[in-house]
């Protein structure tokens, strides 16, 4: 949907990452793949912004890194949600839902503004 844009908005990227981690700890690649997978590849995560986002959230204390072994025996950096991260996720989700509601009601408006000409 947002392919023509620079990519996902930063806030929504954060939201998606947080959601991904709700399922459990994951490494950066895994997060990228999951987002592609659940959005049917519609949101191709611009990987250039994924890792900076991860590090940013780590700095803010929303996620916690841990080095571990990946499924194919490679050393990888896993992230997990902290308590603060969970709270942030809930907050952001509510915000997103509110945004969707508001935009939706704007888009499905029937009344024309005073300055518009007649006709759709």
């Amino acid at each position: 949907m947002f392919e023509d844009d620079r990519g996902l908005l930063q806030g929504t990227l954060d939201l998606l990452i947080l959601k991904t981690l709700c399922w459990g700890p994951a490494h950066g690649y895994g997060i990228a793949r999951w987002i592609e997978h659940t959005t049917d590849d519609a949101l191709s995560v611009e990987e250039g912004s994924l890792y900076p986002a991860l590090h940013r959230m780590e700095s803010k204390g929303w996620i916690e890194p841990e080095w571990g072994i990946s499924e194919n025996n490679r050393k990888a950096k896993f992230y997990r949600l902290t308590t603060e991260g969970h709270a942030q996720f809930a907050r952001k989700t509510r915000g997103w839902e509110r945004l969707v509601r508001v935009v939706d009601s704007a888009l499905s408006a029937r009344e024309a503004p005073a300055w518009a000409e007649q006709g759709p």
Partner: protein
Amino acid sequence: MKDQPVWRRYARIFGADPEADADAELQFHLAMRIRDYMARGMSEQEARAAAEARLGDLAAIRRECAATGVKTERRRSRRERLGSLRQDLHYGARALVRAPGFALMAVLTLAVGIGATTAIFSLVHAVLLAPLPYGEPDRLVRIYETSPQGADRTVVSPGNVVDWTERARSFSQLGAFSGPYGVSLTGSGDPSRVTAAEIQPAVAHALGVPPRLGRVFVDEDAEGAGDVTVLSHAFWQERFGEDPDVLGRRIVLNDHPTTIVGVMGPGFDFPRQGVELWLPIVAARIDPNERRSHNFGVVARLAPSATLEGARAEMETIARLLEQEHPEFMTGWGVNVVGLHDDITASVRPLLILLLCGVCVVLLIACGNLANLLLARGVGRDREFAVRGALGAGRGRIARQLLTESALLALMGGAGAVLLAPALLGGLLDVAPAGIPRLDGATIDARMLLFTGGVTVACALLFGLAPALRLARANLQGLLRGARDASPAGHARLRGGLLIAQVALSVLLLVGTGLFVRSFAAMQATELGFDEAGLSYITVNLPLPRYPESPQQSDFYHRLVERAQQVPGVLSAAGTSHGPGTGAGMTFSFAIEGRVAQNASGREDDELLTAVTPGYFQALRQRIVRGRAFEERDRADAVPVVIISESLARKHWPEGDALGERISFRPGETPWMEIVGVAEDARIESPDVEPRPLIYIPFAQKSWDWLTFMSIVTRVGEGVDPASVNVALRAAMLELDPDLPPLSMGTVREAFRGNTASRSFAMTLVAGFAAIALLLSVVGLYGFLSYAVLRQRQEIGVRLALGATGRDVVWRVLGRSLKLSLAGAALGTLAAAGASSIVESMLYGVSALDTWTYVLTVLVVMTIALAAAFIPAWQAAHISPLQALRSE
């Protein structure tokens, strides 16, 4: 992931490496993506290209991630450190609260040690070390004459001032000054007396300090009537409220209207503190031919190319020349050139150095006490550390925690010191005698505060850490299992040694105090030769223009003395030209009839002379040992008579009787005067100055017209206020001559106190130090002993169980205390004896090795040893053997 070089792997020991981490993370991502692409059928090369393209600018991403990682890392370690610091503080505070006695003593010791040292040092710094408030002050010198008798700080005669100004090349400016003395100020608010000094314009130029308003004196001011004045900053503030329009206004000084032409800036003083305004010395006062009376101070600035040595040499040459040109006046007279700073501080330097030493001693004792306190406390905590070690605390952690505790103490002590030091300094300034120069500028010197703070804090930290250092040697396991404490014996010896040192230092101070006290007592007990109780004086100087000749002067003074006697409350009054307020006397040489003296001039050495009114000896209650005192009949037209002091009589007539002998100041020119009386030696200058031989002549018979000044001394009755008598006297004076205010007034006792002030100041301070030192030592001794008893409970319990009596135990404790104290006393006595030469100059009437003082000091030390041991001994005697054996 690309291979890290081996050493990089271990670099992690020094902390996380965000750059490498980011790189590793991104490499992993790429690797996974490549694998996926290859799984879909791409070749490795294609897969890699596609993966890298998809990722984007690898370097930029890595940089950004690394930067964020660094920030995160920093934040995390800071939080960790703060967390453990908070823990340490919390624990340390609780530990201190649980031992309030220890904490209080430690904090007090720190506060007193640092605060007292800083206060004293600030004082010393302001007086001795701070530069003078003049331009390039190290180029300023003071020039004195040296008399043939060896007085090397004699003020200068006018003729010499003129000659020096003309001839000396080593100085860019040279000028004379006199004062400070009092002048009356009328016509602007209440009439009052202000302190003034007179300076030649050259002095202002020499000092090189620009005025705040207006100008300083110029040569024209000295030519005319001299009715201009420059105000001091303080005076301008008080009297004129810092009015910027004060220039050009006139004030009436000594009944002369005077124009204000300048105001100096704050902090400027010359020649001493407290001078409120300056007046120019008019040229008429500097008689180029007058070389007998010495009444001017001379200050000069070295020329840019001159040195002090060169200036001295030049002045010597000039002095020799003058000797040749004016042999009758200048024979034997020399010159003394001294740096101005040295000159001002010379008299107080020994005192202040003594103070500094005393303070250092107190600081040492405080550090010793602190060390002892901390060591003693540390020894008892082995158990605690063993437990904590078992629970996982590393040695470094325990050490850090101990350090925090000590730092807490240091912080509190430092805060106490910061509060204490200004208060102490204020107190010192209050009790400081007036004679100490430049005291006004004393403020707490921040650097000294930091220095002493650093010293004591370092001491605190060092000794606080000692227990942690011992952990390396102690067997923690054994401790936990209940074995006896593994403290090496060396510690107890160290603490004992510290205690001995403390006692030794206290002894040093005590001896000093004792010597000063005895000095003081000796001074008080000194026979003054006259009765100073109830004596006050008022000093007058008649202006030559209106009283040009001796008869008029004598007439005035006689009438003044008469009026003085009529003032209610006055028992007797008399006048003298050499008394309190007139400064040092004049010296004259004389010849004895029938003898020829050894000196080149054929006359005897110069001796002091004073001219007195009849009734002088009676007023002062000074005994006439032989012959008679002066009477009314000794007038100008009567037979010239003279009275000499006992010491003069002894000097020149050791065998025979001086009565009836005759002397003359200049045989052939001045008449022969008959000695009609010998008076008791009187310490009219100061109780601690040996009375010098003195010649008394009746004021009515004096022949020098320039001898115009006199101190009118009055004895008031019991319960009469001398100040009110002086006021009445002043009124009487103004009745006789309304244009004539007194120069200075006061009581003789005050004048004396001023002279002995620095000695009593030293005494008070040293006594204060000794008291502090004693207190600290007692506390230290008590702590040491009570702790020893505590740690030896088992042993004492065993002894008691095996049949020792309570008395035996008490004796052991007392014996220990006495042994330590006597060792310290011995050491201190040796040190005091060794340092005796330093104090010698400040003592009076008692030798620096006075036996009584030393004996008394040792007795005091033994007493405090017993006093400090009292409670611990009592505690030891009451140890229940059963309990002692069972516990531990």
